[in-house]
């Protein structure tokens, strides 16, 4: 039966521009948001790779003046935001463009809070007070080196965790020129994180038709493109598909509470300084097997998302969930054969067995405690530690 739940809510305020020459729409889109002087934030690495010049050239013939700050560090802090606040105010900027993922978006979101009100609003929001002022326009230009929270309401700045729907960027641009080839392992990690967000959204008890639609888009984009892009990183359409998948997955994730694998991946990543996407990829099959064994989910069509409509239609209902897990394991095995140093287990990522208990006990996976049985968490982590795909 295709019927919505009795009540649900879904929020995604982002305008998406994806494809050939999407970047050139920036001036007119900013104009539509009453912005005429944007400040572009990016990292020294992306700047050195020429990304900043590509974005600047999109403003050719627009008569706009733009500012570029290309010094966003991997760990942005409040001191940087205060410096950028002065720069933004003194030079009359009226919009922010974040070029790149992770720390760039964290910086852009935090700066947007500061310049739309006062820098003190950051601490205020981190302590749980809501934002009272409408934020200035924020555009995000996505690539494939992502933290998983770029297009969501979450940002972190050192010890500050910022959460507000107002932080979600107004505009997202995915242009093949600004989704450059990254290291295979980085692209694989981003895709696996998106996959985890989408699959957990599929199985989430509070899922709704719109989170399903976004999760379906994300999983199909990933499953149909991930191995092609890893084999041939110059596949521009494939990279564009994976960047789109990240947006789809993050949007479904943003509308539901973070799932167990996501939270565990983030917690383990903090403890062993490894890309969380790789950890999530290793944990995901074990989580799905646990869900299957416990029969806690009423979702019988996960294989539609993972395998696609034709494969799903050709599979007996009782074998469907198992096929979904098998397909994900197949993808992991393919990635191992294509990507150098791709882990076969979370052990390969430097996680020690004694750390597992610590992660549960010390509450570094705080978000999942209470929502999930600690024994389940322990089981999944142990299985992922013992099993080598």
């Amino acid at each position, binding site marked *: 039966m295709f019927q919505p739940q009795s009540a649900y809510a879904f929020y995604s305020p982002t305008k998406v521009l994806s494809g050939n020459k999407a970047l050139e729409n920036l001036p007119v889109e900013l104009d539509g948001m009453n912005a005429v002087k944007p400040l572009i934030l990016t990292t020294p690495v992306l*700047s050195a790779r020429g990304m900043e010049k590509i974005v600047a050239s999109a403003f050719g013939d627009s008569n706009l003046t733009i500012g570029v*700050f290309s010094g966003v560090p991997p760990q942005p802090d409040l001191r940087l935001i205060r410096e950028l606040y002065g720069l933004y105010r003194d030079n009359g900027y009226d919009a922010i463009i974040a070029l790149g993922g992770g720390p760039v978006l964290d910086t852009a979101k935090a700066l947007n809070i500061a310049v739309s009100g006062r820098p003190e609003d950051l601490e205020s929001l981190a302590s749980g007070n809501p934002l009272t002022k409408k934020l200035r326009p924020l555009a995000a230009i996505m690539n494939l080196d992502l933290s998983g929270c770029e297009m969501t309401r979450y940002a972190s700045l050192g010890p500050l965790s910022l959460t507000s729907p107002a932080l979600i960027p107004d505009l997202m641009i995915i242009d093949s020129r600004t989704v450059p080839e990254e290291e295979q392992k980085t692209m694989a990690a981003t895709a696996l994180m998106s996959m985890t967000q989408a699959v957990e959204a599929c199985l989430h008890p509070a899922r709704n038709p719109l989170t399903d639609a976004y999760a379906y888009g994300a999983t199909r984009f990933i499953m149909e493109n991930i191995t092609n892009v890893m084999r041939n990183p110059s596949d521009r359409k494939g990279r564009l598909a994976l960047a789109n998948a990240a947006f789809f997955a993050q949007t479904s994730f943003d509308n539901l509470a973070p799932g167990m694998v996501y939270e565990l991946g983030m917690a383990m990543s903090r403890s062993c300084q490894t890309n969380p996407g790789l950890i999530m990829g290793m944990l995901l099959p074990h989580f799905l097997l646990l869900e299957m064994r416990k029969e806690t989910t009423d979702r019988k069509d996960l294989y539609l998302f993972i395998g696609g409509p034709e494969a799903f239609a050709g599979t007996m209902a009782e074998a469907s969930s198992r096929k979904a897990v098998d397909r994900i394991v197949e993808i992991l095995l393919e990635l191992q054969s294509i990507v150098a140093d791709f882990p076969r287990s979370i052990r390969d990522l430097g996680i020690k067995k004694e750390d597992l208990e610590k992660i549960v006990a010390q509450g570094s996976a705080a978000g999942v405690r209470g929502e999930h049985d600690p024994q389940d968490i322990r089981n999944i982590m142990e299985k992922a530690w013992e099993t080598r795909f």
Partner: protein
Amino acid sequence: MNHYKEMQPGSKPIKRAYVALMLWFVGRAIEAAARVDGVVKAEFDGLSPGFTFSLGVMPQGPTMIVGKDDQGLVRYRGWDPEGQKIDLKMKIKNLEGAILMFTFQESTALATARNRLIVDGEVPAACAIVRVLDIVEVYLLPKLIAKLAVKRYPDWFFGEKIRNRIRIYAGAVFGL
């Protein structure tokens, strides 16, 4: 502050000049086609008296303006919208989008679907103008290129197409 600079991105004069030339040529070709081709004439007859439209590139042109005069004849009215009452404004969002259209890599319909155009005016009038543009492109371009530029290449009688094409080129180039 380190790593900071302010810049004024440059212009793209060659691309602008190419698009300006194409708009000038297409504008004059529409005027000629309205005299020569019955379908184009009928499309304009269906529009309100004095109807004028512009097709231009945001934010600062180039632009072409075409409209009906007091006698109902279709006239190319130059590039400057200043002082002209324009009923329908079709704006290409940026120069690169205009280049894709005027190098016939994208048809008008495809460009619209890909969010490259903004239409400010009545939708039926915009649809009529898109149909006119398609017909004019079929006359102006060799079949191989025109097939890329239009939604459907029409099945016209060859002799009539060539005759009309010569008259439209003469009208567009020499104003005959």
